[in-house]
């Protein structure tokens, strides 16, 4: 940046004003427990609004030109497993981006000194742009994919589905926690730690599976992420100037490393391993390289000189890489009637690949897939979820079922708080709860709403039914001789029931 631009930038900063119509304390409705007084914020990037818009407009122009061309050209059909999985994936991604925009608006309002505010505000606009890009991809897929059912309800489904609850709980935590935590959690973990993993993994997988629309969407989004990482680093570098913030930062990094591991991280692994047919690296391999070696190994070391230690549950997070996607897949496939896409069961070739990439996979998960394959034809009148003994418990914090690391050997636990029993998937989530019980104890999950419902009633209540009012949107296979109807599910007579709670355990 030339000297004159730097001067201009400083001049722009100097025209900030204090409003006369509202007091500062009324304006800052949310308080942070971090110490911000007297800190000199690091300016993350000197970008003018004028340049910002020029850049973003050209990005949009390019992307929508691809969308337009792709909708007119009837070229080869994308991969069906991928396109069906994206009904679930994209609906949630769009919701996450929208919530990120809200989070940044909150940051800009509550905590931001002038230097950081500009960055946060541009990120608000970025996130809104990303949300719209993903909504347009959903719309494009709805018009062009051979089975639009599921894409048509995607945005609502992200809010109502039991799978979306994992991401929704994460986003709501971002929006309601201490506002400074939001920056560390979102920008340091979702956008820095997981960024390469997510964008490289998802956009190259989209391209490999013929989904040019999503590949282009991911590329245009990724080109904004560098600024978001810079926002996160600028916030952290500013906070590190005051020693009193160090223990608060440690606590926040401990919380969000685990929180994102059990939400965004699970989703990432699940998609990388179970929604692809053109297989390259496993989710574990990608995680070991991008997330653990580069972020927890490399990036975290920069923080050591401030006295920041590796997150408390890092060893478990690494050990989880052998199980995360597989246990999550059992849940996602097992609960198929309450989702909104067609499932493609794992083939012999998939299983062979899993056994190679994750030795011991068949011993842990093979029996589930055998049971699943026996229950795909509606005339058999068998639901895999019933055959396997019903739904598990769900975690009060992350909303995942308590089946990690392995369903048969999980770390689910109960805890009494204020005379009420709460259930957690792990010591990590239990600690998060204990540090701020008021934040989580009111959360209602799937079982709170649907305990005692016959399963077809759940599907009907969620609205995941096709236009004929009878056939389920979700199907356990890509191509069935006959599709499952609500009546087929009802005949299987599975009533949702809270399972017995796990034993009590103290947090580690």
């Amino acid at each position, binding site marked *: 940046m030339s000297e004159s631009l730097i001067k201009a930038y400083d001049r722009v900063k100097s025209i900030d004003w204090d409003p006369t119509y509202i007091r500062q304390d009324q304006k800052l409705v949310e308080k942070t427990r971090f110490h911000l007084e007297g800190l000199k914020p690091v300016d993350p990037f000197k970008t003018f609004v004028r340049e910002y818009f020029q850049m973003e407009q050209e990005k949009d122009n390019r992307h929508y030109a691809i969308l337009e061309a792709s909708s007119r050209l009837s070229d080869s059909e994308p991969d069906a497993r991928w396109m069906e999985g994206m009904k679930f994936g994209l609906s949630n991604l769009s919701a996450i981006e929208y919530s990120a925009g809200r989070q940044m608006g909150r940051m800009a309002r509550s905590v931001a000194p002038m230097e950081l505010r500009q960055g946060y505000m541009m990120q608000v606009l970025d996130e809104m742009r990303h949300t719209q890009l993903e909504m347009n991809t959903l719309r494009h897929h709805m018009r062009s994919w051979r089975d639009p059912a599921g894409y048509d309800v995607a945005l609502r489904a992200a809010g109502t589905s039991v799978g979306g609850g994992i991401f929704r709980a994460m986003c709501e935590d971002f929006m309601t926690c201490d506002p400074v935590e939001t920056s560390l959690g979102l920008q340091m973990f979702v956008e820095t730690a997981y*960024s390469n993993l997510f964008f490289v993994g998802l956009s190259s997988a989209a391209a490999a599976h013929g989904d040019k629309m999503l590949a282009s969407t991911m590329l245009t989004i990724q080109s904004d992420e*560098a600024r978001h990482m810079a926002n996160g680093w600028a916030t952290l570098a500013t906070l590190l100037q005051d020693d009193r913030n160090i223990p608060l930062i440690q606590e926040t990094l401990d919380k969000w490393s685990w929180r994102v591991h059990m939400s965004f991280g699970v989703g990432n692994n699940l998609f990388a391993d179970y929604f692809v047919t053109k297989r390259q690296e496993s989710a574990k391999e990608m995680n070991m390289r991008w997330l653990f070696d580069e972020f927890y190994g490399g990036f975290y070391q920069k923080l050591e000189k401030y006295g920041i*230690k590796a997150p408390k549950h890092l060893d478990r997070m690494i050990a989880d890489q052998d199980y995360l996607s597989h246990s999550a897949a059992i849940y996602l496939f097992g609960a198929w009637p309450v989702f909104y896409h067609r499932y493609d069961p794992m083939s012999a070739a998939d299983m062979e690949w899993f056994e190679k990439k994750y030795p011991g996979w068949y011993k842990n998960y093979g029996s589930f897939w055998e049971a699943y394959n026996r229950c795909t034809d509606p005339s058999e009148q068998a639901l895999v979820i019933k055959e396997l003994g019903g739904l598990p418990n769900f975690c009060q914090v992350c909303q995942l079922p308590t089946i990690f690391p392995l369903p048969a050997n999980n770390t689910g636990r109960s805890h009494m708080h204020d005379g009420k029993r709460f259930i957690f998937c792990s010591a990590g989530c239990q600690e998060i709860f204990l540090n701020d019980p008021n934040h989580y104890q009111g959360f209602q999950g799937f079982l709170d709403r649907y305990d005692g419902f016959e399963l077809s009633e759940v599907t009907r209540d969620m609205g995941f039914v096709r236009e004929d009012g009878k056939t389920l949107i979700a199907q356990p296979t890509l191509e069935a001789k006959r599709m499952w109807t609500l009546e087929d599910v009802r005949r299987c007579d599975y009533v949702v029931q809270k399972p017995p709670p796990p034993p009590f355990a103290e947090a580690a």
Partner: protein
Amino acid sequence: MSFTVTLAPFGIQFECGEDESILSAALRQGVALRYGCKHGACGTCKARIVEGEVDLTQASGFALMQFERDEGVALLCSTYPLEDVVVQLEDYDETDLHSARPIVECDCHVLMRNRLTSDIWQLLLACDRGSSFEFDAGQFIEVNVPGTDEWRAYSMANAPSDAQRIELLIKELPGGCFSAFLAGGLREGQAIRIRGPYGQFKVQQGTAPIVMVAGGSGMAPILSMLRALGEQRTTREITFYYGARTAHDLICADEIASIALNLGSFTYVPVLSEPESESLWSGETGLVTSAIERQAGNLRAAEAYLCGPPGMIDAAIDVLKRKGMFSSRIRYDKFVSTANRT
């Protein structure tokens, strides 16, 4: 074929091979340019090329707009020079770049030559006229073989604070041109020319426990690091595994013992592969890597510095990773004889 990349306004220069991006050439040579994805998609490494032709075709159209390309903006991770280029950096501080120390040539003379073992020599040089030679512990220099155009690379064993002298530990290689000279023609007071310092093998600041592993003359940079850490009176936990053949090959034992007095938490683990008489040697035996296997616990939070022959380093990396160490925290300097280098 390689091209020279100049970073304006600092005038920092480095060489970039024709199949190498400007970013990877910079990082390889210790110039800390900023980067994110390293594959042309995120835009973190954006900078302007003010002179010279480059190939930018691998950059994403979203991360690098056409109007930016028209103005000479490039993503350094996806920019391949086609001739010498000048890159204009904005918003960089020269200290951010942690630019490698400038490479200088320095006239020295031999202070002392000392045979430590059957095949390792200690060579002490002094800079002429009391001048000093600045380097970081772990770095190496090239020494001109007197009377030839040949240069040979050796790591310093002295602490950087001891800047008027240069201490090298040199393994004698049969037929090696410097080795032959060392064993034969070299005399005290003889003029000798060096250049450097080179290399990125340096101790990272921080608090992480340190594992050091060396074999043979790989002792040199580790000794330099230990000396520097001793001067800092560090309290970091340090474990040093040193592999040698016999008890006679355990060089620098006295120096290590005296450095240990200044280190808060230091463990020295010598490992002999061929102890002459088991009754006299009560320490670790076998390969240095098997000693790490036996002694080290979970190394997730630790970092490692390895120096020695490539086979030892590769084996040590495997063991350290199995013990939980992140590969981004394993730093090493492979000693390869010049004869095998090309």
